[in-house]
């Protein structure tokens, strides 16, 4: 009998504080759950750091913490989300995503089976994105000191040659393109959290990786001015940030904005503007006028379908720098504000 062979993990069906304390249980979690599911040659070294092969050019480096409630939601879970989100932040920087790190904070008592489900989903998402989770960490905090599980992923990508994407690159005349329907993730989550009032809806998060879409766009036209994934704060936040960073105005055409019909229905009911709601598989691109149609075409025909509802929704103007304006179908205009923050549904 091997003195170091750990007990079957089934002996603990929930996460214990000891799983995060660097001793035998922590070892067991690593050896029996994380390593088999995320296996690669870097993790297999079991060292405190991954040693990555040399890169030829510039790197993109990004991080995000994922604190979503519920952890499993229609269209995804915190595991796949934590891969997609970080892959997307690399992709919209013009980089080819390569390596991820993952830091887990687990609440004591969290079911091991759910942890396994999350890590499995993470592994599948990483495979789809062509990235490897090469280093990680797990901490366990006391019951009531974390909401089940938080994941922080960081990512390293290889920057494409000749790409210069930045939120300060907008020029008057540029066209604004969004890659698909707006608000799906945020509305799906809000309604999932209030299951009593929303039940049986067709609402699904759009959580998806955008690295192939970005590749298709940059393959078509490497000179795209700016790209952002429209996560927290939605399209409104991204456009306000872009307008502000580039000191230009932006005018949107309300009629052109793609919104899924179920999302629109829920948004009307909640009194929430889908433009202010988070997406997890949508990007905004700013493209010089002459290239916009070509890029749009490349997006719509991207084989993974992530750009099939891409649309040209507005343009960059010299007027009202820092401000985003919506032109309604009635010919009137209104301001598209930077959202304040927390999305609170209105009832009256």
């Amino acid at each position, binding site marked *: 009998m091997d003195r170091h062979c750990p007990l079957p993990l089934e002996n603990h069906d929930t996460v214990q504080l000891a799983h995060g304390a660097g001793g035998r249980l922590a070892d067991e979690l690593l050896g029996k759950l994380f390593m088999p599911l995320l296996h690669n040659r870097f993790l297999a070294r079991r060292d405190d750091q991954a040693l990555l092969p040399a890169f030829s050019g510039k790197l993109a480096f990004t991080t995000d913490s994922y604190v979503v409630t519920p952890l499993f939601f229609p269209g995804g879970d915190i595991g796949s989300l934590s891969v997609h989100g970080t892959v997307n932040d690399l992709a919209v920087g013009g980089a080819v995503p390569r390596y991820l790190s993952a830091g887990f904070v687990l609440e004591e008592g969290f079911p091991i089976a759910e942890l396994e489900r999350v890590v499995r989903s993470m592994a599948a998402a990483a495979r789809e994105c062509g990235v490897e989770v090469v280093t990680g960490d797990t901490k366990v905090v006391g019951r009531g000191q974390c909401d089940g599980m938080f994941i922080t992923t960081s990512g390293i990508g290889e920057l494409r040659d000749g790409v210069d994407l930045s939120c300060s690159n907008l020029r008057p005349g540029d066209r604004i393109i969004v890659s698909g329907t707006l608000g799906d993730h945020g509305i799906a989550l809000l309604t999932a959290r209030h299951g009593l009032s929303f039940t049986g809806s067709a609402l699904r998060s759009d959580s998806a990786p955008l690295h192939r879409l970005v590749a298709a766009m940059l393959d078509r036209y490497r000179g795209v001015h700016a790209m952002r994934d429209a996560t927290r704060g939605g399209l409104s936040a991204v456009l306000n940030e872009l307008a502000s960073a580039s000191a230009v105005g932006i005018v949107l055409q309300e009629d052109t904005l793609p919104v899924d019909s179920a999302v629109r229905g829920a948004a009307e009911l909640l009194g929430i503007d889908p433009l202010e709601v988070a997406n997890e598989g949508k990007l905004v691109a700013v493209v010089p006028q002459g290239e916009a149609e070509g890029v749009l075409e490349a997006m719509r025909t991207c084989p993974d379908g992530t750009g099939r509802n891409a649309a040209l929704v507005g343009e960059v103007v010299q007027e009202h720098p820092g401000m985003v304006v919506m032109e309604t179908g009635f010919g009137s205009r209104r301001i598209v*504000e930077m959202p304040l923050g927390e999305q609170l549904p*209105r*009832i009256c």
Partner: protein
Amino acid sequence: MKYIDEYRDAEVVRRIAERLAQATTRPWTIMEICGGQTHSILRYGLDQLLPEGISLVHGPGCPVCVTSVKTIDRAIAIASKPGTLLAAFGDMLRVPGSSGDLAAARSRGGDVRFVFSPLEALQLARENPHKEVVFLAVGFETTAPGNAMAVRQAAREGLMNFSVLVSHFLVPPAMEAILASSGNRIQGFLGAGHVCTVTGTEPYLPIARKFQTPVVVAGFEPVDLLSAILRLVQMLEEELVGVENAYGRVVEPQGNPAAAAVVREVFEVADVAWRGIGVIPASGLVLRESFREWDALRKFELGGVDTADDVRCRSGDVLAGRITPDSCDAFGRECRPEHPLGAPMVSGEGACAAYYRYRCSSAKPFSC
């Protein structure tokens, strides 16, 4: 979306606007009593489609805006007690009390939840038998049936850890108060469509007659609003007094009697204070004595909570239609959505927030 998209048809809107321009020969000052309509008007920029002479004045029709500072402070006091859970509609969480809002109380450890329906609050009480669950029951006539049903249901189930902090307002007395106030400029009213779904159109007839002011009940979509404005302008131009219904698919003259009956069973009329306006006689609802066991005011010791509005805030004038939000000195400066001085800057329906959010044309403090 059926019953929505048809009423947002741009071409129809343009044609109605043309008609309206033709029909208007003189300036008219019209109040949309309902904050939801204010929101629609500014969201779609409908004010930009009106002929020169038509001024829209935004009324006090938002229960979030007119709930008193005292009620907010009481809700905060309840939420801050150990062992309580305060449930409220989402837009109540950022209404400023005398110091902070419910969101801040939550961030200090108070258990504050937002709900979509009063029945969700009831469910919270069922699921948390060891907590006192208090629902901040705000509303006009539209919300009263739902809030009343929650109380009646708690009584039926004997759910003793549920109670309501009531802040209920009635629209007709507010309209009367506005028309009776010195310096009134309002010549015609757009009636609040969803209030009338419950009350019907009849309660407005005496007001229209007494003050010789026409009322047209309006819906919330661009076609609904513009067509109601057109009808109201026609009535004004023709000097017709009366109540007409431009929202017939949802409003009937007698309203919803089943709903009104449960409201009467649970609530009774009382004098209440409107934030920024003051007490208006017989303008609100309070719990009937027979439901006192579900009255949060009787359950909790809330002595000493008695506070006044911020003196810089002119919400009274805004809500009474005496000024537009951008005439308030604080607008866009000390008072902004992320730091509201008054309630109308909080709710998506508040006149000040709607102005701040959507108005390109308001001269101050920015323009586009």
